[in-house]
C-alpha cells in the first residue's frame, strides 16, 4: 500500500542524472549531497584517527613520524569539526527543516546550493594540502605564533587558514538561509512556540554561526595578512601579544562547540517523544535552556585558556560562568528523562542512539565540569583527560545524536526502513568501542600523558591504556562499517516505510516518503505543538497532500556551482598565484551576475 502511495505522489518533475544533481536547488537533494559528502569526510577523519591510534598503541612506536603525526591530528580535528559534524547537521537542516515547518523549500534555494558547493570545494581545497607540500600541522586551534611564517614556513598553515575562510562562507550563507526560512516560511498557525524542538535548535545554531564566524574570519584575516604581507598582528618580536589569537579563536571556538552539539540536542528532543509515545516534557523549558546555552556560550571562552595566566579574577569569572552552563544542560537532561517517564518506550535503533546520547553526553558534561575549576584544569588541560572529554561531548554527544537522526529520518528521506538488527549491532558495538577508546583516556591524562605527542617513553605507565584506546578505535571503525553496509543495502532493498513508520508528531510524517519535490501539495494549517497527535491538526496536515492545482517550484540553476567554484579558485590564488586567482575572480563575478539576472520561471 505504501508503495502505491509513493508512486501516486511521485512528482511529475522528477529528474535524474548527474546534471540534475549539479544544478539542483531542491533542499532535499542538497540535504542528501551534504549528508553523503560529510559522511565521506567523517570516514576520512576516522582513518586519520586510526593512524594516530596505531602510532600511539605502544611506547616509542615508529609507525608514522612526528611531521605526519602533527598533520594528521590537525586534519583530524579540522575535518571532524568543519567537514563532518557541522555539514552532517546541515544535512538535517536542509532535508528536514522545510518539511517540519510545512514549507516547500528553504527561503533561498539557489543560495542553499551555493552553500553546499562552497563547502565541497573548500573541503577539497583543504585536503589538497596533503599532496601539495604538506597538510597544516599546528593543531585545529592554530595557536599563534607557531603559525607565523618564521615557525611554519610551508604552505600547510595557508591551506588551513584559507580553507577555513572558504568553509566559513558556506556556513554563513546556510545560517542566514535557515534563519530567514524558519522565521518566514512556517505553515499557518505554527507560532514560534509551536515549532518542533529541532527547528528551534537549528534557529539557535544558525544565530550562533552568524555571530561566531565573523570572529574567526577576522582572526584568520590577521593571520593571512601576517603571512602574506608581513604585518605584525601576531609577531611577538614586533611587540604583538600572541594571546590575541587565543581570545579571538576561543570567542569563536566555544560557541562553535554549541554549534556542534545543539543540533544533536534538537534531534534527541524529536526522537525521545516519538518512541516514548509522549510529548516532550517541559517543551518551553527545553527551548529556553537551548537559547540560554547559546547565550552563555559567549561568556566562557577563556576557560580554554586557564593556563595562559589571566590572573585570579578572570579565572574565577570564567570558572563560574562555565559552571553556570551546567544548569541548563542538566535541566535538558532531566526533561528528557521525564519525557520517557510514564511513556511506552520502544527501543528502536534511533531511540537507542538517543539514549546513548544522554548517557555519554552526561559523562562528557561532567568531565567538563571538572575542568571548569581552574586549579583542577591546570593539571588536566592539554592532557588526554581533555581528549576524553571532547570525544564524550562530540562523539558521545554530537555523533550519537546524528546517528539517532539518521535512523529516525532515513525512512522519510528514502522511503525505506533501515535494518533494525544491523542497527542494534551498530549501536551496541559503538557504545562498547566508544567507551573502550575514550574512557581510559581520562586516566592516562590524569596520570600525566600530554596531548599531541607522537611518542611517549617506556616506563611511564601509559602503555596498557593506550593499547586499549587503539583497540577501541579499530572497533569503532568496524561499527561505522556496519552502519555503511546497513545504509547501502537499506537504500536499495529496505522494507518500504510508508508515510509515518514511527507515529511521529511533526509535519514531516504527514507527507509521503520520500517527499515529492514540492513537499506539501497545499499548505497545512497547524493548531498545536505535535500537530499529528491532535485530531484537528492531523486532519489539516494530512489534507495538505491533496493537490489542487499547478505548483510552482524554483527552476534548476548551475550558477551556484559556478560562483562557488570561482570563489574557491579565487581564494586558492593566494597560494597558487594569479593564474588561479584572476580566472577565479572572473568566474565568480560572471556566476554571481548571471545568478542575479537569471529568470525565475
Amino acid at each position, binding site marked *: 500500500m505504501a508503495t502505491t502511495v509513493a508512486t501516486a505522489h511521485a512528482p511529475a518533475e522528477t529528474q535524474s542524472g548527474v546534471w540534475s544533481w549539479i544544478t539542483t536547488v531542491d533542499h532535499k537533494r542538497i540535504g542528501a549531497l551534504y549528508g553523503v559528502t560529510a559522511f565521506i569526510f567523517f570516514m576520512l577523519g576516522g582513518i586519520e584517527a586510526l593512524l594516530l591510534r596505531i602510532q600511539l598503541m605502544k611506547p616509542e612506536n615508529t609507525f608514522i613520524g*612526528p611531521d605526519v603525526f602533527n598533520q594528521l591530528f590537525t586534519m583530524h580535528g579540522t575535518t571532524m569539526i568543519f567537514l563532518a559534524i557541522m555539514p552532517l547537521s546541515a544535512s538535517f537542516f536542509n532535508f528536514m527543516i522545510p518539511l517540519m515547518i510545512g514549507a516547500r523549500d528553504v527561503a533561498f534555494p539557489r543560495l542553499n546550493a551555493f552553500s553546499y558547493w562552497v563547502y565541497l570545494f573548500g573541503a577539497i581545497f583543504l585536503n589538497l594540502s596533503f599532496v601539495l607540500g604538506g597538510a597544516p600541522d599546528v593543531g585545529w586551534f592554530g595557536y599563534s605564533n607557531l603559525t607565523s611564517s618564521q615557525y611554519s614556513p610551508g604552505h600547510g598553515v595557508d591551506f588551513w587558514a584559507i580553507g577555513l575562510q572558504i568553509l566559513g562562507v558556506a556556513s554563513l550563507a546556510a545560517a542566514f538561509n535557515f534563519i530567514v526560512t524558519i522565521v518566514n516560511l512556517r505553515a499557518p498557525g505554527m507560532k514560534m512556540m509551536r515549532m518542533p524542538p529541532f527547528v528551534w535548535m537549528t534557529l539557535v545554531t544558525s544565530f550562533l554561526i552568524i555571530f561566531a564566524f565573523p570572529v574567526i574570519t577576522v582572526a584568520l584575516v590577521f593571520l593571512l595578512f601576517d603571512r602574506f604581507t608581513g604585518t605584525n598582528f601576531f609577531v611577538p618580536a614586533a611587540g604583538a601579544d600572541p594571546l590575541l589569537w587565543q581570545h579571538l579563536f576561543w570567542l569563536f571556538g566555544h560557541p562553535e562547540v554549541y554549534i556542534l552539539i545543539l543540533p544533536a540536542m534538537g534531534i534527541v528532543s524529536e526522537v525521545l517523544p516519538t518512541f516514548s509515545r509522549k510529548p516532550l516534557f517541559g517543551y518551553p523549558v527545553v527551548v529556553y535552556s537551548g537559547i540560554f546555552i547559546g547565550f552563555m556560550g559567549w561568556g566562557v571562552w577563556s576557560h580554554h585558556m586557564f593556563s595562559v595566566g589571566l590572573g585570579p579574577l578572570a579565572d574565577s569569572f570564567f570558572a563560574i560562568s562555565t559552571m553556570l552552563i*551546567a544548569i541548563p544542560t542538566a535541566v535538558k537532561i*532531566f526533561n528528557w528523562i521525564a519525557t520517557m517517564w510514564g511513556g511506552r*518506550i520502544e527501543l528502536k535503533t534511533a531511540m537507542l542512539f538517543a*539514549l546513548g546520547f544522554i548517557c555519554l553526553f552526561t559523562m562528557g558534561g561532567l568531565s567538563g565540569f571538572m575542568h571548569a575549576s581552574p*586549579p*583542577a584544569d591546570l593539571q588536566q588541560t592539554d592532557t588526554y583527560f581533555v581528549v576524553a572529554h571532547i570525544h564524550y561531548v562530540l562523539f558521545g554527544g554530537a555523533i550519537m545524536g546524528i546517528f539517532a537522526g539518521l535512523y529516525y529520518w532515513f525512512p522519510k528521506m528514502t522511503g525505506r526502513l533501515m535494518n533494525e538488527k544491523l542497527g542494534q549491532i551498530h549501536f551496541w558495538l559503538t557504545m562498547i568501542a566508544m567507551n573502550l577508546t575514550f574512557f581510559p583516556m581520562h586516566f592516562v591524562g590524569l596520570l600525566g600523558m*600530554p596531548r599531541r605527542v607522537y611518542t611517549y*617513553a617506556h616506563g611511564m605507565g601509559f602503555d596498557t591504556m593506550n593499547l586499549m584506546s587503539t583497540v577501541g578505535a579499530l572497533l569503532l571503525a568496524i561499527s561505522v562499517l556496519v552502519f555503511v553496509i546497513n545504509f547501502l543495502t537499506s537504500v536499495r532493498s529496505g522494507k518500504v516505510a510508508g508515510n509515518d513508520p514511527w507515529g511521529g508528531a511533526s509535519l514531516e510524517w504527514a507527507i509521503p516518503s520520500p517527499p515529492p519535490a514540492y513537499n506539501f501539495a497545499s499548505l497545512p494549517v497547524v493548531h498545536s505543538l505535535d500537530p499529528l497527535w491532535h485530531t484537528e491538526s492531523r486532519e489539516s496536515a494530512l489534507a495538505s497532500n491533496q493537490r489542487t492545482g499547478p505548483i510552482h517550484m524554483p527552476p534548476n540553476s548551475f550558477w551556484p556551482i559556478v560562483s562557488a567554484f570561482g570563489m574557491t579558485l579565487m581564494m586558492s590564488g593566494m597560494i597558487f598565484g594569479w593564474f588561479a586567482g584572476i580566472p577565479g575572480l572572473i568566474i565568480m563575478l560572471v556566476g554571481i551576475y548571471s545568478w542575479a539576472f537569471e529568470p525565475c520561471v
Partner: protein
Amino acid sequence: MAVRGNRAGFSRWTGALFAAATLALLATGCSLRDFPQSSLHPHSDYAWTIQHLLEQLTFWVVVIFALVQALLIYTVIRFRSRPGAPDPKPVHGNTVLEIAWTVAPAIILTVIAVPTVMAIFQTQGKPPKDAIHVKVVGHQWWWEFQYPELGVVTGSEMHVPVNKPVAVDIETVDVLHSFWFPAVGGKRDAVPNHTNRMFFTPDSVGEFPGQCAELCGISHANMRMKLFVDTPEAFAAWVADQKKPPAEPDSSTLAGRGKLEFSNGACVSCHTIDGISAGTIGPNLTHFGSRTSIAGAIYDNNTENLAHWIATPDKRKPGTLMLNLGLEKAQVDALVAYMQSLK
C-alpha cells in the same frame, strides 16, 4: 596514598569523599613508581591543593553520574513497551519539578565554586618571601633553568631543596610552551612577551619527570625535563658544584682534545661553557657531566647515547636545532670525553 589525612582544613570532608577519591585512585593503580608523571600523586602544597579540589569534584561528578544513569536505566526498563500497555498520558510538564531540577544543580555548583575560587586566589597570590627564584625559559625543544640569586644556569634538569618555597618565572624565546611537573602542581604556559609565575613548596625528596604541555612544533613530544627535589645538604652541594668553573682537562688526554674540538668548532656559536664560549641557542654545558639526561631529557646521559647525539642529532630528535656537523668518529669520541668531564 596514606599521606592524605594530615592536611588542615579538609578534615571536615566526610568519609564519603575519601571513599570516592580512593576509588578513583584505586582504579588507576596507586604507585608513583608505576606512573612517574602522575598528577594524582602530589608532592607539594600546590599539588595537594589541586588534589583536594579534584577529590571534591570527583565525588560530585561520580554521584551525579551514578544517579542520572540509574534514573535513565530504571526509566527505560520500567516504561519499556509491553504488549497491551495502555497509551501514555500526554503530560506536558510540571513547574515544581522544573524549579527543583534547576535549583539542585545550582546548589551543587555553589558548593564547588566556593572552594574553587578560594583555591584560585590561594595558588595565584604572592609567593612567600623566602622563596628560591628559578627562571624557566622554554626553547624549541628544551627547558632552560636560571637561578639568578645563585648564579647558576642549567638545562632540562631542575634542582630544588625540599620543604622550601620555589617561585618560578616562566618565559619563552620562541613559541608557546607549557611548564608542567605534575607532581608539584598544575601547568603554566610560557607565552612570548609575557612572564608567568607560579610557586610551590615540594614536600618530599625525589626525582619527578615533567614535559612541555603546549604544542610547540615537530619535537613537542621530545621536550621533557626532570625535577630533582634534594635534601637541603644535597641541594647546597649541587649549587656549589654548579658555581665552580668548568673542568679543565689535561690537553694530552682524550677529554683535552675534546675541549679543543669544542672551542675550535661550531659548538661555541650555540653553547655556553663558562670561560670558553657564550652561545645561547642551545643549553649551557658548563656542568653538562653532572646531568643524568641529554637532548631535552629524552636519553640517559651515557657514552653511547652522547656519541650518537653529537654525531647525528637530527636522527635522534626530529627537527632539533642542533646541527649535524659531519664529525669524524675520533672527534665525536673526544667531545664525548670532554662533555663527560664537565662534572
